[in-house]
């Protein structure tokens, strides 16, 4: 499962970085939506169908909400691209330290983590999990509408 999944996850990371770097908020929104789609594709390729479905639903909810947020706040990111000063330096050092620590930790991890077999999994509640995905997504939308006082929309 390694190669196609890894490629799709790298595409996800690249699209995520595009979303972080773009100044046009419409491009930010589209990039984030595509990143979630690429991630869902990676999960489908890996055989984790339910995670893929969850990613699609979560991506759709975020895409719609981000569109609403962009409409409310303006179409262009006018905030300075980088945080500056000591905090930026600390942030950069933290990211590098994280990657180095992750590399060495994963190197010692070997081929895989001991995981439960399918026999131990809760396969009989698959539908319930999917239902929970939908409920969680709808709860987020409901919370948004309630918080902004626009239940009628």
């Amino acid at each position, binding site marked *: 499962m390694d190669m196609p*999944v*890894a490629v799709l*996850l*790298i595409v996800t*990371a690249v699209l*995520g*970085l595009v*979303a*972080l770097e773009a100044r046009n908020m419409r491009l*930010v929104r589209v990039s*984030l939506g595509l*990143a*979630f789609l690429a*991630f869902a594709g*990676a*999960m489908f390729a*890996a*055989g*984790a169908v*339910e*995670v893929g479905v*969850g*990613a699609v639903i*979560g991506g759709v909810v*975020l895409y719609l*909400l*981000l569109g609403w*947020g962009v409409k*409310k*706040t303006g179409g262009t*990111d006018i*905030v*300075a691209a*980088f*945080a500056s000063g000591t905090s930026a330096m*600390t*942030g*950069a050092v*933290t*990211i590098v330290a*994280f990657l180095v620590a*992750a590399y060495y930790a*994963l190197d010692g*991890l070997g081929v*895989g983590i001991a*995981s*439960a*077999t*399918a026999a*131990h*999994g*809760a396969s009989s509640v698959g539908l319930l*999990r999917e239902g929970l*995905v939908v409920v*969680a*997504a709808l*709860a987020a939308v409901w*919370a*948004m509408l309630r*918080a902004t006082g626009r239940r009628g929309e």
Partner: protein
Amino acid sequence: MQMYLVSAILVAAGLYGVLLKRNLFKVLIGIALMALGVASFVVTAGAAGNGVDAVSQTVALVAVVGGASVVSLMLVTAVRLHEKYGTLDIREMRRLKG
């Protein structure tokens, strides 16, 4: 190992947004990316044969949906903050707090 590293890169990309971006929307996008990275790590850890075991899928599903839900609610809060302060710059908000 390769898959774990890719997951770590995804988390690092999100960390970049959280730590180095000043636009609140970008910070939230960083959090969403980190949730995806964690989910892919869990799925990789649970890979067995041709598929992924059910427990790992459940945990990853919670990471993805929980992350998306939290980011959704924070996005609403960000819009409210924009209405109050007139900016999405987190430093400017800190300066303007009364």
